[in-house]
């Protein structure tokens, strides 16, 4: 498991604290009942700040699972960390 994936898992855990580590890695908008629009906004916000990325709103509908976000961040070759 990469350091980047761990950071993404930490972002998920901060927004969905009730999920176990295993549930986080399998999380999707269908499997997590708490994944509503408010939490989606929060999740995007925390990921953008943590990974110092600017997620295009047009991509948001596709970013509906842990795996999708992991792939998105990988595709965008994210290596940095946001400033505190």
């Amino acid at each position, binding site marked *: 498991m990469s350091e980047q994936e761990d950071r993404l898992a930490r972002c998920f855990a901060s927004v969905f604290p009730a999920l176990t580590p295993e549930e986080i890695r399998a999380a999707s908008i269908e499997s997590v009942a708490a994944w509503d629009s408010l939490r989606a906004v929060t999740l995007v*916000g925390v990921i953008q700040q943590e990974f110092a990325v600017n997620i295009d709103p047009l991509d948001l509908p596709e970013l509906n699972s842990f795996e999708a976000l992991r792939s998105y961040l990988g595709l965008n070759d994210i290596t940095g960390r*946001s400033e*505190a």
Partner: protein
Amino acid sequence: MNLLDALELLNRPIAEPVSVREVILECGFTPVYLKTFLAAHLRLCLPKHRIEMRTGLYGDLAGDLERVQLSDRSVVCVVLEWADLDPRLGIRSLGGWRSMDIPDIVDSARRQSERLTHLIRQLADSASVCVCTPTLPLPPIFTTRGDQAHHHECQLREIAASLAASLSSCRRVKFLNLQRLDELSPLGRRFDAKAEITSGSPYSLEHASKVAELLAVLIRDSPPKKGLITDLDDTLWAGILGEVGVQGISWDMAGHAHMHGLYQQFLASLASAGVLLAVASKNDPALVEQALGRTDILLSRDSLFPLEAHWGPKSESVGRILETWNIAAGDVIFIDDSPMEVAEVRAAFPEIGCVEFPKSDYQGIWDLIKELRDCFGKGIVTREDEIRLHSIRAVSPVKNSLQERGLGVEDFLRNSGATVTFCLGTDARDNRAFELINKTNQFNLNGKRFSESEWVSFFRDPTAFLLAASYEDKYGPLGKIAVVMGKITGHKLYVTSWVMSCRAFSRRIEHQCLKYLFEKLDAEEIVFDYEATPRNGPLQDFFTASFGEPPVPALSIRKADFDVKVPALFHQVLEVASV
């Protein structure tokens, strides 16, 4: 604080919350990030409180303010933005930015501002309200270039400023200081157009965190420090008095010591607001008196008491000053240019805020002055603030004289010509009573503090009472120095809070308060909601000395027992409708 830190902080359980605070966040935009950051900063500011947060509906700030339901634990935070004054001042509305539209936007903003002013004023009748006026840049709707302020732009800023000016005199309304926000959050990095369009949340994460941080500090409303002890040489003035003489020390431009003059001027400002000032200096006392007597000094000699000028250790000076002031070390700041002296005082009094004076560092002195304003700042200056130093100064030599003459407290009290003036009622607008309850530590029944809304709510109960006592003797007035509050059931009183200023100790005012309550309210028994706190030793001593046993929770005193044990009281007692 970043968003991840905020969320993780909020996910941690609170260790033994002592009470619940309800914060109602009212804003016209989606407060998703602001709410999270505010909750997180409140967790840091009020670690022992469970914070319950509520928010209103999107896009209807005025409607939300009309509908808000308050409880006695509520604090309301109103975060205004330009779009709340007119939606065309935001970017989600496409209502038109033509030059002929702008006067109408200004008129509409003025009307909405007046409506919001009225609603906030109404809320402040029952709850504490923290207000943040617009923080975002105005949109580029004016016909001038961005570097030239347009007349209509100036009018909009005047509208926001008028709202603040109109409400700032309300005791329960506190405004976030935009100047402080400007220091923390650069204007160009506040607005997030993408977040505004996609989620209706116009604040960048960074800006949301800074606004939340300042709002949390407003909500916490920590009590100010009470006293400042300053060194003299290379602190209050530039130069070593013993080396350069009285005329050699300086605090002006000519002597390249203007920042010391600024420090003096600032201390004079603190003194005028009731802050106690004292001197701890290793110096020749006669020379010090001459130096402080210079006509060009900016800080009056009378503002400084006690004045400890000698060659003994500073920690001993500080100890005597604290004893004279009768306040806790934690309520005091000590300032000295010598790192060694600062270390010595810090070792002796770890609770004192010890600051090394940054001599020769203009910016450092400027920053220190701003920091001190934060330590000592208070919302209102009361009559008691104005007379505090005078009363301490007047009594101190009398006590010394009595001790020297071998006379006891009985003689002192009998000959002091004291008058206690009581005001019994339920007036929740009593600012001084509210202040005393919320800042007194030593003579305090249980340490309980009140929010504005809890305070107002308490006195809505028809069985509630509020007794305020003022004191004066031949040495001068002490002002309003004691407050007892509680509920009445038949011939039984339940005292839920009781505080008395430390300046009023040893005058048997506390006995007089109980005597008055027993007699005036025809009580047979008083039950006290007593609780030991780390700092209410003087109250515990009072009960132990008066009734023979240390106090216990739900302590009860019957009138018959009180009448036997009450010592001789020499006060003249007066009653007034309002003190």
